[in-house]
């Protein structure tokens, strides 16, 4: 299935901001909700309607609920074959709808399914897709300015898709804030049909096994995040960070370098291609502060940096910093927190200095 799509048809034919809504177990993914909020802002600036697109099965109630976040309408494609996410039928649905309705902008949550879909779809539609954006704007011509951190240096790249439509972009969870929900908001539910058959099912889900949460909150839901980077030097020191996180009632996370070094699974990675977190306090321990990492945590309320290198970029965005050996500072932090919890009095120097 290739959808031929003429980019020179005339941009003016393309109108409206769309948000791909991803359902999971009967609810909307956080990131879809967050993008409705951002989509609303862009649609208002463009003076165009904001439409959610919800392929699925038995999703009427969910569609109606979605309106409350700020959508003007939801296009529902309801079909049993769309009950769970599958690449090919979902791509077919989105391509058909986009060709039919010609939105100028389509936003996707960069969940695994979102990326799976966006990657296949943008090639088939032969249009631009900017991944993992942290900010959106509109340029003077009304083009979507898709902003993402640039590699290496402290810079942001502005990506434009000037000649092709729709302009597509993805953003990760927690980059944008969820809008409030108004159950009384009015909006239109449009039911559309797309030709689907068993032939479109080219992959079979054999089994799904949910992760058992081993207690403790996820980093992107915790109030306190204790994050470790390359400075830790070894996987075993994440145990020390876990102890600190437990004392603070928080979660452990990591920088990309720590993940790439094999010390901790990718699920814990904070950064542009990992999670975005916004805790009350973010401890960056042994993390240098590469801009891709900052993209994932720079909106934390308070940032505490502990690093041996006084020139580390992390200190520029920290509220509080200690330039020192984390192998001395972190155990000391643990010690004093334990004393604090035990209700012990004013802090005194330890009896033995850590050599």
């Amino acid at each position, binding site marked *: 299935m*290739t959808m031929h799509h003429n*980019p020179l048809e005339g941009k003016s034919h393309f109108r409206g901001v769309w948000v791909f809504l991803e359902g*999971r177990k009967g609810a909307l993914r956080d990131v879809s909700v967050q993008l409705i909020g951002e989509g609303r802002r862009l649609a208002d600036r463009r003076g165009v309607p904001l439409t959610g697109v919800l392929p699925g099965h038995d999703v009427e109630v969910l569609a109606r609920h979605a309106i409350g976040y700020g959508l003007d309408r939801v296009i529902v494609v309801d079909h049993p074959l769309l009950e769970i996410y599958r*690449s*090919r039928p979902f791509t077919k649905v989105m391509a058909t709808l986009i060709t039919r309705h010609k939105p100028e902008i389509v936003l996707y949550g960069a969940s*695994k*399914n979102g*990326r*799976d879909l*966006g*990657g*296949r779809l*943008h*090639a*088939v539609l*032969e249009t631009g*897709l*900017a*991944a993992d954006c942290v900010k959106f704007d509109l*340029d003077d011509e009304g083009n979507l*300015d898709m902003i993402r*951190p*640039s*590699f290496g*240096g*402290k*810079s*942001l790249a*502005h*990506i*434009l*898709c000037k000649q*092709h439509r729709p302009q597509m972009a993805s953003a990760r969870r927690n980059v944008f804030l969820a809008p409030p929900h108004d159950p009384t908001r009015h909006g239109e539910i449009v039911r559309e049909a797309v030709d689907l058959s068993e032939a479109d099912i*080219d*992959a079979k*889900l*054999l089994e*799904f*096994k949910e*992760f058992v949460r081993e207690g403790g909150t996820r980093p992107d839901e915790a109030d306190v995040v204790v994050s470790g980077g390359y400075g830790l030097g070894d996987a075993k020191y994440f145990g020390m960070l876990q102890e600190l996180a437990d004392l603070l009632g928080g979660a452990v996370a990591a920088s990309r370098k720590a993940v*790439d070094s094999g010390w901790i699974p*990718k699920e814990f990675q904070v950064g542009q291609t990992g999670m975005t977190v916004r805790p009350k306090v973010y401890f960056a321990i042994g993390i240098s502060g590469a801009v891709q990492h*900052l993209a994932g945590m*720079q909106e934390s*309320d*308070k940032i*505490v940096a502990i690093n041996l290198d006084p020139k580390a970029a992390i*200190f*520029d965005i*920290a*509220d*509080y*910093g*200690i330039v020192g050996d984390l192998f001395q500072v972190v155990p*000391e932090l643990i010690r*004093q*927190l334990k004393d*604090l919890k035990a209700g012990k009095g004013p802090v005194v*120097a*330890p009896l033995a200095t850590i050599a």
Partner: protein
Amino acid sequence: MPAGGPLRILVCIKQVPKAQELQVDPKTQTLKRVGVPSEINPPDANALEFALRIKDRMPAEIVVLSMGPTSFDESLERSIGMGADRAVLLTDRILGGSDTVPTAHALSETIKKIGGYDLILCGEETTDASTGHVGPGIAGHLDIPQITYISELDIVDGKVRARRTAEDGSEWWEAAMPCLVTVNFGCNKPRAPTLSGKIRVKRGGVIVHWSCADVGIDPNKVGLKNSPTIVAKVDTVHLPPRARKLFHGEPWEAVAQLLKALVKDGVIRP
């Protein structure tokens, strides 16, 4: 479809600057690629390792495929050193500046020209661009099933079976071949090149270079001019102002002051 003959597995790889060595050219604001040590994009190496494991167990032919400048031969040679049978480099000046749309298109056309493929393996994303678009893009062009973000891969009863890592758990998927799979970074340990592999490289004849004309790729579909997205400008990051307060002294002193501040902010409760 395999009819008793060896499986033809294609592995798409990209050569990227070594992870720790990412440098930006201050003049062009693009990634410095010349004179910087390179490596096979790590998730692509994980993908190649899966292909090699399949070949360890059953008759298979592994063709490694890449798109880029001739310096990418280094990674193709390493792939053959690891055990791939042959390699194709799509290299052509007109490809310069291609974003993921022309890249997926050009690779798909090249794959069609190689033909007879049963399984296509890609890394989940690259360490330099990090979009993750090209693998699924190729699957879209070739109109074949795709299973993304997999950590385990097997061939069972002539079908591909893979464990996909969703955010909330593991999904086991099955698809008929030909199909495309994208492989998670770090899900296996890529093997080192062997002496016999390196000898094969030295003997030559295992890497071919194709131009767009060789493959039959329309020049109007590739290159910077024909890429839907462009980097319009790059500017410095503006972050909210931070207190930047440093605590000095012995570890116990600095930590005491830090805790005092955090308690005062109400961020930590004693």
